[in-house]
């Protein structure tokens, strides 16, 4: 009806192809060839010292073999203490971080917050995401000294950037009419959030929160390397002493806990649909 000049007869019997994303032929080929050339050039710059790798294989083998014979006992008090510290750090940081993230996420969702609030909250998220955990941890260790307090603060701070951003994006993509219906009843802003927005984003909030607990636990093992407490400190000491069997024991415990969290997350998310 719109395109009257279309001649169906001459079109019939000819194959149809999806129009290419880059319409100009020469430009498309330049882009493809350029990409391939870059890829080849990039791989050629990787410098591998094969004799060094050969030597390293022996050390790697020792490390892997240690997993067949993990030593849970000889450093059991260190491992136990580190684990408790890590778990405490994880739980405390997750609770505080998620608690702060929720209001920031509301502020960072353009369809819920006015522009000035939006900009401030997006700014906070950007800062939190820009600073890598290790860097924050080094700074906080310098301020608060060695120990789990620095680790706890680092993880809380990192949780804000992660959770607020993803939750805000979920709020922005919610179903508008459900929220509109609540607004039409004369609800105040807080009630509107509680009835119109919260139910829609709840599954995502719970899923993200559990995932963040998982990340925080794994991060707590890393933060020990810079002195921010937790199982990481124990792990670091084990590596320094070449006690691969103790290190293997710690890694196995971390793997088991992460897998348990993963399983728990699946169970909870299936329930909150």
């Amino acid at each position, binding site marked *: 009806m719109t395109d009257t000049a279309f001649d169906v007869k001459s079109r019939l019997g000819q194959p149809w192809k999806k129009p290419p994303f880059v319409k100009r032929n020469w430009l498309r080929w330049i882009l493809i060839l350029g990409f391939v050339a870059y890829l080849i050039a990039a791989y050629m710059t990787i410098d591998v010292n094969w004799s060094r790798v050969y030597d390293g294989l022996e050390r790697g083998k020792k490390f892997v073999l240690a997993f067949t014979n993990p030593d849970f006992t000889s450093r059991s008090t260190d491992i136990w203490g580190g684990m408790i510290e890590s778990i405490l750090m994880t739980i405390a940081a997750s609770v505080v971080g998620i608690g702060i993230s929720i209001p920031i996420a509301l502020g960072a969702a353009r369809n819920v917050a006015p522009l000035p609030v939006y900009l401030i909250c997006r700014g906070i998220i950007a800062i939190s995401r820009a600073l890598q955990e290790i860097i924050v941890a080094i700074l906080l260790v310098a301020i608060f000294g060695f120990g789990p307090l620095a680790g706890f603060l680092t993880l809380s701070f990192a949780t804000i950037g992660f959770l607020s951003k993803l939750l805000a994006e979920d709020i922005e993509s919610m179903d508008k009419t459900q929220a*509109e*219906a609540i607004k039409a*009843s*004369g*609800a105040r802003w807080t*009630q509107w959030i509680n*009835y119109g927005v919260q139910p829609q984003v709840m599954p995502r909030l719970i899923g993200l929160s559990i995932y963040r607990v998982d990340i925080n636990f794994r991060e707590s093992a890393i933060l020990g390397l810079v002195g921010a407490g937790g199982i990481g400190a124990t792990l670091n000491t084990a590596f320094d002493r070449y006690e691969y069997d103790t290190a293997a024991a710690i890694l196995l415990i971390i793997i088991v806990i992460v897998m348990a969290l993963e399983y728990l997350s699946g169970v909870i998310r299936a329930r909150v649909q």
Partner: protein
Amino acid sequence: MLRVDKLVKTYKTGDQALKAVEIDIPEGQVLALIGPSGAGKSTLIRCINRLVEPTSGKVYLGDVELTGLSSAALRRERRRMGMIFQEYALVERLTVMENVLSGRLGYVGFWRSFLRKFPQSDVDEAFRLLDRVGMAHMADKRADELSGGQRQRVGICRALIQDPALLLVDEPTASLDPKTSRQIMRLICELCKERGLAAIINIHDVALAQMFVQRVIGLRFGAIEFDGPPEGLTPDVLTSIYGEEDWEATIEKVEDGEEVAAQ
């Protein structure tokens, strides 16, 4: 009861959705708003409760001018305007009861609503309304478990529990089958009569509108093209609202419809 005075809505894109619309609705009148898609029907009813801010013009509900109200006063007036939505707009992950009680949010404080501790009178009224629309046994089901017709019944309860003076109804039957559409339209009109409510019903289905309402307004390109009783919708009038088509079949269908409805 409701007076719309030279209401204009121009969207940011420059589209003029409403051009100086004037409507006067007396107490208890049920009015159907017809017109092609994009004629401004949804915009008009959303401008009345200011889910969409009108560009200029005034809306009076009783003696209150809605267009000039502060946000707190607007919330109070919104309680007097129940709204029923296309696609129901129930909060899917809340229960039927929570959805109905959400109609009372304008009356209860935040903590009461947050803790779901609504006054007993509200809970009783919710059950009375759900029973009236035949949904009382579903009170604790989640909204996303219901069928389309059931959802719209819950949507009607949510609007009525506000104890409104006016119902704003946006395409209530757009996604329902023909039989359920009639049941829902009949239910809305009966409830309006029982409670003496005025209503503006946006509707695509001209035949269905003719069956149930006392007055029809036809909107085209944001301006009123027709305002009169449903019998006044002749083929010429429909052509002026929707453009050229063969309207005899549509009008035939009305008579069919009335027979079915009478059975």
